């Protein structure tokens, strides 16, 4: 059996069999599925308890204006505030809405009393109703019929179409693309760093446990370095595939399990009541938006291209950075010394994540283009651009430059690694490393 293959096998199996890998593999998708499902589920569940609100309206403007909602019922009381509090809150356990009369005669202040935190939908509904009523009254006072305003309101439904090179029109949805771009960019950053760190740790472990000399008496240092890098890259890909598969599985289980199959209808109802109180409960709608987003992604928007490019840019970016991390691990003696070398190496990667906003706002700008050409920033940048569509020649340029980039860094890293792994008790400096590089 080829020796490099043996090394790859050991690096791969020793990591995949670790408890931490198994936990991460299960926990990751579980969390992902949960962030998608849970907000909707929690909202649904919290709405299940009905709330009653006693309204003490000193202005009299809002009589009968508060309509009973699915989970909220309103009744009116005419006591003073203290008695109202005593009756509604302490005896019945309800909420109390107090709208005091103000000097300006325009009630813009209201107080909501309750024993527990009132739900967001309650406050949102109250705010909406009061706002609308006051606006209507003001309009009437100025001689404008609120019905006129209502009929003048228009809802613009802007659908964007993208025409690709084949001339095929395709409905595009920018929100989905932005979400996907951010997600892919962050994921690739996270994967490169997480598995790059494993390369660094692995090399340092071999050096400090001194097994490295035994191994390089059997194989070339380059074989050991590449075996480790490739082995860990495969661990990364395994994790990636398992995450995709398991997230899908968990989503399926959650949907059928937690909502007993009735999940979609439930969401629809929720959607309508959400519409009824307009945008003010946007926050609560988050769960719904995410769910729709995921649904649309799964509906096949560039899904195959996304996965393929993720794999390519993960491998390319990983090989590029991992070889540098391996060089650092080989050069340093102690954990503490890694910092001074880690910083300059990780700056381009961190920088490309910091540019997220710029890239997403203008995925076709020349800055975005150049960032997706430079091998150090291209993995993250390109993953962010791809959901928006990138001209083919740019993809090829970026891919070829990335491959060339990792060949160069691997070649340089191998030189540093080879010398470094046999150096002990010496604090390495940049000048020292420069000398190693010049060695033939």
């Amino acid at each position, binding site marked *: 059996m080829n020796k490099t293959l043996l090394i790859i096998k050991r690096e791969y199996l*020793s990591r995949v069999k670790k408890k931490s890998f198994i936990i991460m593999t299960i926990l990751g998708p579980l969390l992902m599925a949960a962030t998608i499902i849970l907000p909707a589920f929690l909202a649904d569940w919290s709405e299940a308890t009905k709330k009653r609100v006693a309204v003490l309206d000193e202005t009299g403007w809002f009589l009968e204006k508060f309509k009973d909602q699915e989970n909220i019922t309103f009744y009116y009381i005419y006591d003073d505030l203290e008695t109202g509090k005593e009756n509604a809150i302490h005896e019945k356990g309800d909420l109390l809405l107090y709208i005091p009369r103000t000097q300006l005669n325009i009630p813009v202040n209201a107080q909501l009393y309750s024993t527990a935190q009132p739900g967001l939908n309650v406050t949102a509904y109250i705010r909406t109703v009061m706002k609308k009523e006051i606006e209507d009254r003001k309009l009437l006072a100025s001689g404008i019929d609120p019905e006129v305003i209502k009929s003048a309101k228009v809802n613009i439904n802007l659908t964007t179409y993208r025409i690709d090179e084949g001339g095929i029109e395709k409905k595009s949805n920018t929100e989905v693309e932005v979400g996907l771009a951010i997600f892919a960019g962050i994921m690739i950053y996270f994967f490169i760093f997480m598995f790059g760190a494993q390369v660094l740790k692995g090399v340092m472990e071999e050096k400090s446990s001194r*097994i490295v*000399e035994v191994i390089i008496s059997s194989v070339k240092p380059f074989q050991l370095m590449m075996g480790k890098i490739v082995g860990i890259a495969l661990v990364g890909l395994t994790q990636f595939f398992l995450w995709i598969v398991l997230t899908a599985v968990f989503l399926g289980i959650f949907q059928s399990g937690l909502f007993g199959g009735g999940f979609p209808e439930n969401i629809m109802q929720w959607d309508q009541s959400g519409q009824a109180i307009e945008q003010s409960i946007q926050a609560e709608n988050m769960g719904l938006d995410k769910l729709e987003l995921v649904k649309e992604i799964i509906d096949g928007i560039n899904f195959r291209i996304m996965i393929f490019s993720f794999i390519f840019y993960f491998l390319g970016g990983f090989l590029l950075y991992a070889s540098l991390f391996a060089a650092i691990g080989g050069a340093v003696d102690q954990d503490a010394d890694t910092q001074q070398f880690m910083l300059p190496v990780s700056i381009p990667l961190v920088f490309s994540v910091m540019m997220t906003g710029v890239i997403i706002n203008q995925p076709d700008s020349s800055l975005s283009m150049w960032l997706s050409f430079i091998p150090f920033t291209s993995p993250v940048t390109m993953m962010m651009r791809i959901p928006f569509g990138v001209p083919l020649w740019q993809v090829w340029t970026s891919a070829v430059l990335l491959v060339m980039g990792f060949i160069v860094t691997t070649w340089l890293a191998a030189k540093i690694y080879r010398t470094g792994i046999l150096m002990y008790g010496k604090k390495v400096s940049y000048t020292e490393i420069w000398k190693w590089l010049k060695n033939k």
Partner: protein
Amino acid sequence: MSLLQAINVTKSYAGHKALANVSIDVDQQSIFGLLGPNGAGKTTLIRIINMILAKDSGEILLDGKKITASDTQFIGYLPEERGLYKKMKVGEQALYLAQLKGMPKQEAYTKLKEWFDKFDIGSWWHKKVEELSKGMQQKVQFIVTVVHQPKLLIFDEPFSGFDPINVNLLKEEILKLRADGATIIFSTHNMASVEELCDHIALINNSKVILSGEINEIINRFKANIFEVTYKSPKELLLDEDGLTVLSTEKTNGTFNSRIKITGSRSPNELLQAIMHQAEITTYQEVLPSINDIFIQEVNRAKHE
């Protein structure tokens, strides 16, 4: 017939010469001691033989042919600074290292089991390395070095970290390996074991070989013709003959012990005759220098040159 030859090997690191024209010649099926103070260049030479480091000039021949990367599977190397993967199981790790030396898995497994039984450590197979004591790890390491039946074995300080019982076990195994046909290069500061095991030695100091040869020949080369005599006599021995000088005499319980130096053309027999008239001799033997003495003497001499 030599198995390994280093011819004029030179190696320098940035601004520092580690080996200057070093040549050694290791006979087939012999034990070769590589001696020298710390930092003399022994480890560099060993690493060059193992193809871990590249030499600047010179040649390394294995079996008369230039050594290549694939020859490393014929070499077993136990470095001075050694270690194992701490989190990996002992047996799994030994298998991995044996396979890296080119052994097929099944064969490696069988051979390793044999060695584990021989060293009485069969029960450690499924333990993690971090659960073993340092001495236990050394045993595993030794097995891993020899399991692929290399024709050349290189041990750098093999006895450090072992208790006397295991040192003996190891010595026996090393001698057995030689008997089975292996050639051994052995680097150590333990001079007693050098005298006990080595056939040839080379002393490296300050990047150069300053002394090399067959061990008995070297001892003879450095002997000072001093004889030690123990005798019973009422009074101390007196010699006033040319070429026989008493260096020192000690008396314990009526027994004398004298060290006498023979110079010029006098022979040990003449000394014996000269004493016989005066005293009753109990023991008579030549005082030979130890490798330790030779080591210190030669290194110091090189320093003053």
